């Protein structure tokens, strides 16, 4: 009896997990779009400090760089087969033609963000110097792998 309840509960949990899993897997387009928005927001925060529009804040710098680093590590896995279209995706078909290069470009962004994170730029000038190399990755990847709508 008790065993049956446990089994049923386990079953329900598994079912719920599977359902959630499916729900997530259905929308990698939305997930990856959110990831890029997070990176954009982080770049904006860093650029605001670099330009002197916002005061230097070590915590903002750290969180922004960490977000960029984190996204870069899982971002290229958000493009499973079958998500080439839909949800107003701006993904270029070239992502699926050259997955290795696409992964390498994301890895480069992660490397540059990690380097900046390790040094943790300590003032406005250091932030300005750090975001140059990071920002170059945006265009370098978007040139080939993003279609503007």
């Amino acid at each position, binding site marked *: 009896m008790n065993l049956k309840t446990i089994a049923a509960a386990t079953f329900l949990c598994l079912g719920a997990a599977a359902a959630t899993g499916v729900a997530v897997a259905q929308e990698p387009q939305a997930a990856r779009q959110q990831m890029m928005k997070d990176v954009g927001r982080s*770049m904006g925060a860093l650029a605001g400090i670099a330009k002197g529009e916002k005061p230097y804040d070590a915590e903002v710098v750290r969180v922004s760089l960490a977000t960029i680093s984190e996204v870069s590590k899982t971002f290229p896995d958000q493009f499973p087969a079958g998500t080439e279209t839909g949800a107003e995706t701006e993904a270029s078909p070239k992502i699926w033609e050259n997955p290795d290069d696409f992964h390498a470009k994301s890895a480069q962004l992660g490397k540059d963000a990690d380097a900046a994170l390790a040094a943790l730029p300590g003032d406005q000038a250091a932030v300005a110097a750090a975001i140059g190399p990071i*920002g170059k990755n945006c*265009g370098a990847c978007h*040139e080939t792998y993003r*279609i503007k709508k």
Partner: protein
Amino acid sequence: MKLRSLATAALLAGVVGIGAFAWITAPARSASESWQGLGEPDIANGERVFSEGGCASCHAAPGAGEENRLVLAGGAPLKSPFGTFHPPNISSDPEAGIGAWTLQEFGDAMLGGVGRRGEHLYPSFPYASYARMTPRDINDLYGYLRTLSASDNVAPPHDLPFPFNLRPLLGAWKFLYLNDAPRVTLAGADAKIERGQYLVEGPGHCGECHTPRTTLGGLETAQWLAGAPNPEGGPGRVPNITAGEGGIGGWSAGDIASYLETGFTPDYDSVGGAMVAVQKNMARLPAADREAIAAYLKAIPAH
């Protein structure tokens, strides 16, 4: 009898018509005087014009890295509704490139779309924009191109189906679409806006992608810079860069200039696609030129 004279008249009209077509639409060479007295080319300005036009974007080999960006060996195929164009070798090689061309021949290609053998060139080479360029800029660009390395690569011919493979028909296209008139009339434009107008409408040839085209491939100038389908077909759309709906009316002039310099939009989205190469070229220009482009884009009619 009457029928026969009618037929003769029709035939005569036809012959006259074809003759008139050929005469009106024949490739026109410039007067050689236009190219005299320009003096030695200013190479530094030529390099600047080279960036304004983004010549390397089409004429450098596909995938040429930073180190081969200036080897203009002939570029990646350009797909269009009319067929596939292959940008030619314009390196300084006298055989495969344009190293043996005179300034007048170069100027006729740039401003009139006329090739060295006197043939019409296809407007995939955007001479319908370059027609607004000054002889001085042409002379300086000519001088600068001669300083770049030679490549003996022979670019393939264009791959166009009938009837687009008939060059004489381009005469009619030019009759309709080739002129050096301003694309928009801007009352009370100051020197900065005028400089921006020159850069955008002339060497920068921004309208070639950002303005929709007619079925004959001419620019729909009533929709100047209002955005257009991807010229190579397929997904994606070239954005509206006027202040109209979906455009950049919310951007300040500073935002536009900053985007051209850094590749970041005001909300830190980044430049993508073919615009990446354009933006990198714009970043090479003096700040005043980017500000002039911004001032012009703020001044043009919203669509």
